């Protein structure tokens, strides 16, 4: 052993040193998250600095509006905002940062992305003070429509809101009003009227619905929205939460699946939707080769560069079913403040500042997205969506806000894809989902 041992001894010493070094570097990783209290955010913040990790990239329309707001904010308050325009991956970068003591003071993102990483893990500060802070002489809570907050989506485990939205997105069934003025004049209000429209379109020789079938999130909108129409907002989440899986035996759930099956079996979907690659189908829709597409409020901006000349964007809501009031899909984009941030006050003040009508109006007219404030004007292309949100009695989140680990990606999406792509019938889909959900909860509780 002589020679080897003598070589190994210094190596062992090095290994020890390296281990010691790396464990100290990760120190604090297991710190319990601080039990944060709402702070008083009035008062001077002059001279204070915050770090903001933005979901926007330099040059994006939304970035320009926020950058202008930050410039005004710095001038008005004397605080300094150091921004990193990181883009959509900012939430992925946030996860490891939350395990250190070097966290950003302010982050923004979609609710769907922020909730799993910071909202539901108790890593966000309560922003109660932001909601009571006044912008344009009114409390923030009064400029955000009550139906956005009344179902408590922003509330953390402590019952206090952890997110402040500044913009929203929604969806609708989009069409070219220049080609189909009849749809703008009288959009189908019920499912039967919708099928009538589809039959007429089919008879006229054009493909009724375009769909990028390779995007599971788009496919699932059909089944999930149909279910929400039948059973109301929150019913999909309740169905999924049911550990016994018995909810899937509800005739209304089968009914929702049957609606999707009708679209598939009825040949209303553009041929090739089940074997194409995004954005092929929305491109041919924008070229006028298909009449309708169910997609987000971003559709006009996303397809604007290749749409047929004279394309006049308009949309109607997913048709109503039964007597339930039809909720509108509203997904939120907004701010959260990590609980570990040491600059709570200026960070929360900036979150409130974005709700000034000046920047809300700019989001609507310059960035052409939907501002969270209903009194802000929007671009003509999304007026139909805004009208639908304003008129809806309630709202729901994309996928009804289901974020259980891996449930959508591993359980729901694959089976829903089979249904939407015509590989299984509605009855088979129900049976498979029930079994898979029971197994999921057996493994994950």
């Amino acid at each position, binding site marked *: 052993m002589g020679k080897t041992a003598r070589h190994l001894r210094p190596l062992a010493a090095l290994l020890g040193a390296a281990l010691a070094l790396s464990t100290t570097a990760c120190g604090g990783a297991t710190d319990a998250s601080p039990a944060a209290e709402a702070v008083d955010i009035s008062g001077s913040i002059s001279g204070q600095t915050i770090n903001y990790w933005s979901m926007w990239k330099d040059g994006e329309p939304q970035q320009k509006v926020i950058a202008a707001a930050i410039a005004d904010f710095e001038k008005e308050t004397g605080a300094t905002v150091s921004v990193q325009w990181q883009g959509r991956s900012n939430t992925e970068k946030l996860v490891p940062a*939350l395990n250190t003591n070097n966290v950003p003071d302010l982050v923004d993102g979609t609710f769907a992305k922020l909730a799993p990483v910071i909202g539901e*893990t108790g890593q966000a500060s309560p922003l109660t003070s932001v909601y009571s802070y006044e912008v344009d002489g009114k409390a923030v809570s009064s400029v955000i429509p009550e139906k956005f907050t009344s179902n408590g989506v922003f509330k953390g485990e402590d019952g206090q809101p952890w997110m402040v939205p500044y913009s929203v997105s929604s969806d609708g069934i989009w069409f070219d009003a220049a080609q189909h003025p009849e749809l703008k004049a009288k959009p189908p209000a019920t499912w039967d009227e919708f099928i009538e429209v589809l039959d007429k379109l089919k008879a006229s020789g054009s493909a009724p619905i375009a769909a990028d079938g390779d995007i599971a999130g788009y496919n699932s909108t059909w089944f999930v929205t149909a279910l929400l129409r039948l059973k109301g907002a929150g019913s999909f989440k309740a169905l999924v939460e049911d550990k016994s899986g018995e909810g899937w035996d509800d005739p209304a759930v089968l009914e929702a699946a049957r609606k999707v099956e009708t679209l598939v079996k009825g040949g209303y979907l553009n041929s090739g939707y089940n074997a194409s690659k995004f954005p092929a189908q929305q491109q041919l829709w924008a070229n006028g080769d298909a009449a309708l597409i169910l997609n987000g409020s971003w559709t006009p901006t996303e397809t604007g560069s290749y749409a047929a000349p004279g394309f006049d964007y308009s949309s109607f809501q997913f048709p109503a079913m039964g007597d339930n009031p039809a909720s509108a899909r509203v997904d939120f984009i907004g701010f959260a403040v990590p609980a570990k941030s040491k600059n709570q006050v200026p960070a929360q003040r900036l979150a409130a500042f974005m709700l000034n009508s000046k920047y809300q109006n700019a989001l609507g007219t310059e960035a052409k997205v939907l501002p969270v404030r209903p009194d802000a004007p929007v671009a003509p292309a999304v007026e139909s969506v805004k009208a639908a949100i304003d008129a809806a009695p309630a709202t729901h989140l994309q996928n009804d806000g289901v974020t259980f680990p891996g449930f959508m990606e591993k359980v729901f999406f694959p089976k829903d894809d089979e249904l939407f*792509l015509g590989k299984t019938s509605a009855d088979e889909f129900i049976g498979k989902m029930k079994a898979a959900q029971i197994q999921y909860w057996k493994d994950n509780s």
Partner: protein
Amino acid sequence: MTLHLTEPRTGGAPVHSPESRKPVPRKSQRGSRPGGSSIDVQRKKLLIPFVGPAFVLYTVLFIVPALGAVWISLHKWAGSGPMKFVGLDNYGRIFRDQLFLSSFGNTLLLLFVVGTAIFVLAFALTLVLRDMAGKKIARNVIFFPHLINALVFGVLAGFIFNPGGMVNTLLAPLGVTDPPKWLAQDNIFPLIMVTLVCTTTGYFTTILMAGVDRIPPYYYEDCALAGASAFQRLRYVILPLTWDVFGTCAVLWTISSVKIFEIVWVFGGSSGAGVPPTQSWTAAVYTYVNAFSGQSTPAYGAATASAVLSLALISVLVVLLRRAMRRDAVEF
């Protein structure tokens, strides 16, 4: 004849007999000079300054994170916030998860089926290219696809295989009115396999050719004089003399095939706009979706468990492969 790489360490005559490898009794060392010859002393003095920094970096950047991953895999954890110790639950759950098994099956398909196709093709190309005029140009041409980012192939797949894409447009004049659904969920993985064969063959051909080029021409002349057939030449000259290169390539492929991720992600994931269909997942994609899908609460425990399992199974495969490929290197 075989080459022995055992270096003379004591400064004396080259050591060959197995007996001399036995540890020298300590006493005799102390008796002569503490720590052995002066070269040995120098060598020991330089060990820390030379090996130390690399060793520390390697430990901090690779070994500790790997151990950290094993630790995380024993917990239920969303990436931040409280960690709950669950023991080996994550592993049990993964083995029961049909999706992990099918994802891992896909990884094995890439490793063995695509690997076999690549090596058969690469070897065939090597033999063809050896005597070809303009082989340097040909070599560059077949190597070229390897330089292109996999993302490009993912995007290109859309242009080529979409319902209104290139292939169907070319087929239409030939009377094919109902072409196959190229990009249907079940067809994506076979397409990925074909793409990988096309892009990776050139890379291994280049390495194998370097090995084949090393063979001195007089062996071929010998073959010609002895009247050996082309197959005999392959069997008795080329294969034995390139075996070590071949073995290295096999290990390289094993390691890289396990990590294949981005091409699956862009091929079926709509260039990153969503998660690819589960039919085309590999173990790496499974790991990623569990931790970073962005659509649900991250499950770091399950993700690291699947990563640790992949690492373990692959380590076993590499060791087995090395064993199976072990021959005495031929000195020439």
